[in-house]
């Protein structure tokens, strides 16, 4: 089967990077003047030359998002099932070489954690794990999904890359969306950060969205871990990936997230710093290029940024997140993946959203469609 790899192979990191950094303000203005934009326009809009146009981009981003999604913000919460992991990823708290006790939730513990999320009002849960294929595998997922299926309208999963057949089974079990981030599209840099484990296989990860698409999952989420490499070049490749997928798996919805590298126990510092202006520019560029893309803002971001980014392209937000298994009730002290930044509760975030003139949406799908 032809996959994204064949498209990816036609591009070269360095020439894309120099194209981005050589963009002129005239090219930015031309892209801004268009009503239908392509990847070249995305490239121009993430360039340093587009920085002076940020307010103009934000205004159009606001209008386009309002037109397509209305004044609503979809609410979700992560549920970390396990922090066991066989990979060494030097930026992640779950990295194998981080010698801290590991935990995988039992059925009874899943139930307790789930209750806490339901009480907070959530109807969309994102299941998260590390990669421990002997214990936390498709059978574990199917069992966990069976436990929580009746309580959530949307179940998403951010777990290790699986096979097409395993994704099909998740789809049949009622999983609505799958998130898998390439982390970085720079192959050598990828190798440097992912030194051991199945995740060190760049190509297998790169072809994961093709498998998700083939399996007919309703929605998939892509992203890069911002801080590993130059965010502009990495984001261009991420957009190229989405562009390819949208044309091929045209019945699938797409979302993009912007995880900026956060502190965690025992990890390295980011190599590249992305400030708030950069992130705002990136969000706007995605929206101006792609009106249908769902844009998710997690609790990695701080209060001030989250309050202000609501009218700028955002379509979904998490709240009150815990990034460790058992974090809500059963084992609040277990190893977390990263420190969150916005610690406000779901109720507080819902109020912030309302204060901005937006409606927090808790239920946005129905089990009967599966």
């Amino acid at each position, binding site marked *: 089967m032809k996959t994204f790899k064949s498209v990816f192979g036609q591009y070269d990191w360095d020439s894309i990077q120099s194209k981005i950094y050589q963009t002129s303000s005239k090219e930015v203005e*031309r892209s*801004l*003047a*268009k*009503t*239908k934009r392509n990847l*070249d326009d995305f490239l121009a809009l993430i360039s340093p030359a587009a920085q002076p146009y*940020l*307010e*103009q981009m*934000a*205004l*159009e981003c*606001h209008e386009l998002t309002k037109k397509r999604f209305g004044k609503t913000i979809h609410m979700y919460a992560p549920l970390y099932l396990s922090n066991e992991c066989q990979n060494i990823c030097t930026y992640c708290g779950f990295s194998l070489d981080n010698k801290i006790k590991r935990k995988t939730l039992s059925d009874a513990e899943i139930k307790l954690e789930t209750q806490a999320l339901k009480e907070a009002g959530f109807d969309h849960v994102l299941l998260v794990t590390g990669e421990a294929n002997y214990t936390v595998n498709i059978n574990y997922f199917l069992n966990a999904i069976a436990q929580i299926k009746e309580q959530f309208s949307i179940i998403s999963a951010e777990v290790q890359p699986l096979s097409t057949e395993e994704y099909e089974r998740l789809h049949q079990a009622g999983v609505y969306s799958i998130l898998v981030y390439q982390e970085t599209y720079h192959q050598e840099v990828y190798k440097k950060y992912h030194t051991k484990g199945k995740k060190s296989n760049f190509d297998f990860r790169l072809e994961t969205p093709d498998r998700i698409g083939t399996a007919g999952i309703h929605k998939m989420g892509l992203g890069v871990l911002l801080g590993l490499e130059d965010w502009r070049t990495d984001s261009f490749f991420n957009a190229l990936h989405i562009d390819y997928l*949208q*044309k*091929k798996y*045209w019945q699938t919805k797409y979302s993009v997230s912007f995880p900026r590298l956060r502190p965690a126990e025992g990890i390295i510092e980011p190599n590249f710093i992305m400030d*708030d*202006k950069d992130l*705002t520019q990136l969000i706007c560029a995605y929206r101006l290029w792609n009106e249908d893309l769902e844009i998710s803002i997690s609790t990695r971001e701080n209060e*001030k*940024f989250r*309050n*202000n980014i609501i*009218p*700028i392209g955002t379509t979904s937000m998490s709240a009150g997140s815990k990034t460790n298994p058992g974090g809500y009730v059963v084992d609040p002290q277990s190893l977390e993946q990263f420190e969150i930044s916005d610690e406000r509760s779901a109720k507080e975030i819902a109020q912030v959203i309302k204060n901005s003139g937006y409606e927090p949406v808790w239920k946005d799908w129905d089990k009967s469609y599966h």
Partner: protein
Amino acid sequence: MQTSLFKIGDKTLTSRLFLGTGKFGSNFEMEEAILASQSELVTVALKRIDLETETDAILTHLKHPGIHLLPNTSGARNAKEAIFAAQLVREALETNWLKLEIHPDPKYLMPDAIETLKATEELAKLGFIVLPYIHADPVLCKHLENAGTAAVMPLGSPIGSNKGLKTIDFLEIIIEQSNVPVIIDAGIGAPSDAAKAMEIGADAVLVNTAIAVAGNPRLMAEAFKEAVIAGRKAFEAKIAIQQNHAVASSPLTSFLYD
């Protein structure tokens, strides 16, 4: 400067103008117009040619180096008829290229989406390079891609109407999403319509009536040739489309500078 080449199936083409061969005052007029247009792909209706004779009146006028024939199934009312016709014409003209036309309604010649999809699937399996004539329906285009189509040929407006690109909003969606060449077929009434089609990123256009019934078909063919090249050049030069974004005064991004 030349515009970029493009590929359909195994053929690389220079000209992005395809011509129809119907409605001309004479075969001589047709031949003159085709040569003036510098088109490399002309469609000819199976129903108009006599496959029995070696010297069919239309075909003799189309025998020029660099001009490929694109037989079409005009007249077929369903998939079954179209598939039968396709096999017949493949053998007679020794080409597996086919413009698939299925229109059960003889008045407006509206393409039948359901039968066209069925026939495309079947013909692709039989090794045809299928170019189906369809409504400007983006979802149908994706289904046709899955069925193995070589290109899609959505209509700009009702066939023969010369009304131009009435379906432009849908054509733009098709062009944006397509993994196969998009050829705008039907309704292109003036060179400016063809230029517009190229400006929005269509890979090619097919023109028949507007040239065939013009006062001077040869001159009109030349006009279309130039319009198509101009439109394509504008697309490749990255045309600026609109300038309508004002900068408002209540800044969304002021929080970044606090």
